[in-house]
C-alpha cells in the first residue's frame, strides 16, 4: 500500500508495472486517473492550484486505503495525488488496485476515489478569465460515497 503526495507528474505504465511486479497472485489491475479539464462550471480554466494539509493528507489517504482493504480482498493499492500548480490536460490523481479477480479491484478503486473526493484534505483553486476562484464541493460527490453506505456532508448541501 503506497501513498504519495507530490508536485511531480507520474507514469501510469511504470507505476502499474511496479505495483504488480513479482506478484503472480494478481489477476486484475484497475486504475483511475483524474485530469485537469479546461472548462468548469461554465468558465474556461487556464490553470489550477492544488493545496493540501501536509501530514493530515497522508493519514487520510492511508485510512481510506485501509478501509478498502478491509472491505475487499485486494492485494495492493497505490494512490498518487499531485499538488501545486497544474494546467489543463495535466494528470491530477492516480488510484490503482490489484486483486485476484476484477470485481474486487473495480469496486475498491471506485471506493477509494469516492472516499478521497469528500474526505481527503485537498482544495482546488482555478484561474479563469474572470479571475481566481476556489472550486465548490459537489453534492454529487457526497452521493457517490453514500452508495457505499458512508454518509458525508462535505458539500454542506450546496448544489
Amino acid at each position, binding site marked *: 500500500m503506497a501513498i504519495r503526495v507530490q508536485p511531480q507528474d507520474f507514469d501510469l505504465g511504470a507505476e502499474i508495472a511496479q505495483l504488480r511486479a513479482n506478484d503472480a497472485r494478481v489477476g486484475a489491475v484497475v486504475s483511475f486517473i483524474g485530469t485537469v479539464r479546461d472548462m468548469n462550471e461554465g468558465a474556461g480554466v487556464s490553470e489550477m492550484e492544488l493545496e493540501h494539509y501536509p501530514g493530515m493528507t497522508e493519514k487520510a489517504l492511508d485510512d481510506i486505503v485501509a478501509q478498502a482493504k478491509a472491505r475487499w480482498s485486494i492485494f495492493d493499492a497505490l494512490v498518487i495525488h499531485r499538488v501545486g500548480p497544474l494546467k489543463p490536460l495535466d494528470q491530477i490523481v492516480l488510484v490503482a488496485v490489484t486483486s485476484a479477480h476484477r470485481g474486487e479491484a473495480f469496486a475498491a478503486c471506485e471506493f477509494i476515489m469516492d472516499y478521497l473526493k469528500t474526505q481527503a484534505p485537498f482544495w482546488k*483553486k482555478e484561474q479563469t478569465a474572470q479571475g481566481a476562484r476556489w472550486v465548490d*464541493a459537489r453534492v454529487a460527490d457526497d452521493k457517490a460515497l453514500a452508495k457505499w453506505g458512508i454518509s458525508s456532508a462535505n458539500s454542506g448541501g450546496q448544489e
Partner: protein
Amino acid sequence: MNIQLRFFASIREALGTGQEAVSVPAHVQTVGDVRTFLRARGGVWAEALAEGRALRMAYNQQMTDASARISEGCEVAFFPPVTGG
C-alpha cells in the same frame, strides 16, 4: 490551554494566516468552542467562521465534528469542504 491552529484554502486566505499558536481560556473545551472563541475576534474571523457556513474541522489531523474535545498541545484546523481528486 495552548493549542495550534491551522487554516487552509479560502479560510486561510480570508483570515490572512495559515497557522497560529493560541492560548484559550478554560471554558473553551471543544473544537466547536474554539470556532466560537475565534469568531468573537470579529471582522474577518466572524465572517470566515460564521455559523451556518460550510466549514470542516480537524482535530490532530483527523476529520471531526464540533463536539471533539481539545487537549493541551493539540492541533485544530478549519477549512472549507474538500475538493481534491
